[in-house]
């Protein structure tokens, strides 16, 4: 498949020069469709000091279908579901808006950007979005509490369900490799 070449290239690029504060690796060396990303909470935000696991899955039809990006680490954020699924709402990842020429580097950068600048007008968690708009202090307090509770210590990727057929069990080993490579 033509897309193998594209995925291999993108993986090489993202592991060599990932977006700021990110490390990228495969969940399992034989499965290029399943990426594990570790993201350091951007400095100057409520997420600073936390380490977040992000799972990126490439559909078979990639790059004609958008990748699926989820948070493996619980995070208190208006645009991420406040549950174990950790689904993200990102405009560029909607099927009808996705462009095949969009690179995963840009997707990852956009995810990171979302932590720096939450989008309360397009929320998945309306309550958190309201809080973000109306009581920023309270929001930041809650977000920090989540960081302390979930985003300290080694990143785990197996919390998220349905990690694909490619064996999510070995994830902790893979993430260890990832942090070594950066």
């Amino acid at each position, binding site marked *: 498949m033509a897309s193998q*070449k594209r995925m291999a290239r993108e993986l090489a690029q993202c592991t060599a020069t990932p977006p700021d504060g990110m490390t990228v690796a495969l969940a399992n060396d034989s499965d290029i469709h399943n990426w594990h990303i570790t993201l350091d909470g951007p400095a100057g935000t409520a997420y600073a000091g936390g380490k977040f696991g992000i799972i990126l899955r490439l559909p078979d039809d990639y790059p004609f279908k958008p990748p699926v990006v989820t948070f493996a680490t619980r995070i208190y954020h208006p645009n991420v579901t406040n549950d174990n699924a950790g689904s993200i709402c990102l405009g560029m990842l909607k099927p009808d808006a996705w462009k095949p*020429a*969009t690179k995963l580097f840009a997707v990852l950068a956009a995810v990171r950007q979302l932590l720096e600048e939450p989008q309360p007008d397009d929320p998945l968690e309306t309550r958190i979005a309201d809080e973000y708009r109306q009581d920023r202090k309270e929001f930041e307090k809650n977000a920090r509490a989540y960081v302390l509770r979930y985003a300290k210590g080694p990143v785990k990727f197996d919390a998220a369900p349905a990690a694909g057929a490619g064996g999510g069990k070995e994830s902790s080993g893979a993430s260890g490799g990832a942090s070594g490579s950066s």
Partner: protein
Amino acid sequence: MDSEDDFMSAVSSEDDILPDDSDNDDMSGGEDDFDFDDEPDPDLGIQKDAPPKKVAYDISFKVYQPSDIQKQQDDLINEVNMILDISKEEAAILLRYFRWNKERLIEDYMDKPLKVLEAAGLFQAAAGPPKLEIIPGFVCDICCEEEEGLQSFSIKCGHRYCVDCYRHYLSQKIQEEGEAARIQCPADGCNLIIDARSLDILVTPELTERYHQLLNRTYVEDKDTLKWCPAPDCQNAVECGVKKKDLDKVVPTVSCLCSHRFCFGCILNDHQPAPCELVKRWLKKCADDSETANWISANTKECPKCNSTIEKNGGCNHMTCRKCKHEFCWMCMGLWSEHGTSWYSCNRFEEKSGLDARDAQAKSRVSLERYLHYYNRYANHEQSARLDKDIYHKTEKKMVQLQKESGMSWIEVQYLNSASQALQTCRQTLMWTYAFAFYLARNNQTEIFEENQKDLEMAVEGLSGMFEQPVVELAKSNLKVEIMDKTAYCNKRRVILLEDTAHNLAEGRWIFNVELTGVMPSGGPSSNSNSNSRR
């Protein structure tokens, strides 16, 4: 819309189902033949002042076949192409962007062309026919292929991708997402729209066909005056000028070339004479209420004091309303306290309290009974119309049989076909007259309406009866004449009824017991309880 006069189109409608009275084998005669003067009828006085030969309930419409729709689009595109001096592809994209409002497009474009082009996903750049190219050293940004001789393509923005990726992208958009008019360049953040000519050189013929189908669809869906015929497998569209806000004044019934008759306002089957709003309410009410109402009517009574509906599920006649604690006798509905010691047998029919209670009971039942009256007749005609469809198929056999047995020619047996069609159309109308009548307030007009309804109904039942005679009988010439007469009479009665209702509707003279516009109160105008008795 001035360039469509020469299209193939079926102008106006009722022709095929309103053969004039004696002339049954001419199905295309139409309203011009319809001679209102040959039977003086006071009811027809009204419509004499209407525009000549234009029946009040008839509205003008045109049917377009797929090729007509294509031609209309092409004509508009050509026109814009000439006026604005832009390519046809660009004209098409702009027209779609402006929802085929040519005037607005031209005005806006004259005003600020660049802004319009940009908003529609076009911007000016060197034009030239789209073509595939082989560029040395090219690497496709989607699949990262870089082999020698790789064919590549780009639209005007210059974002170039290999032809395989482009095809894959387009086929996914067209087939999976059903997108056509607004497929953008595959580049991140580039909103340039891929035009039809580029698409034609890229994709396979099947996909091109689908693409143009989708484009045609947007043309019809973008225009308020166009609607698809809802009949299965029918690809025609109907154009009609009736606006949504007029729907309380007219019932815009149109008839497609495929012979399906439907309401342009709500796309449901022909529901003359009832206006769309009443139809919507009626259908909802029937879906909600009819079975329930039947059961309630058969199994319950209301508490004489608070009108709660009560089912007696056993036990003695001493009822205590669970809601208001009123104690009464199930048999006579009178106060239980007056029953003294005759506990289990109620023979106190004359007592006043019992009489009053039964009176109230009867009143509250009236609305339910009223609804059931109309519903049952509505449902009966609906069912009969279905049965008549079966009969229609049998008719065809009968006609063949007749031709064999009586030596009649094909044209001579067509009167059966006319009769069957008349039956179906009239039943459809009758069915909706009952829904209509349910919402009518009682006054003189309603009485005239009911007279008309009765006349039509009697005529239809009469024709229906004749129609079911054995073939031997049908062949006799006196029955043939009778059927032909009755068919004409049915059609005429239907015209009269629809004339009358449509005319009054247009003039806003009907008084309904519900508000015709506006939001429907929850549970319907008279659900279970009694709009009637409260009035």
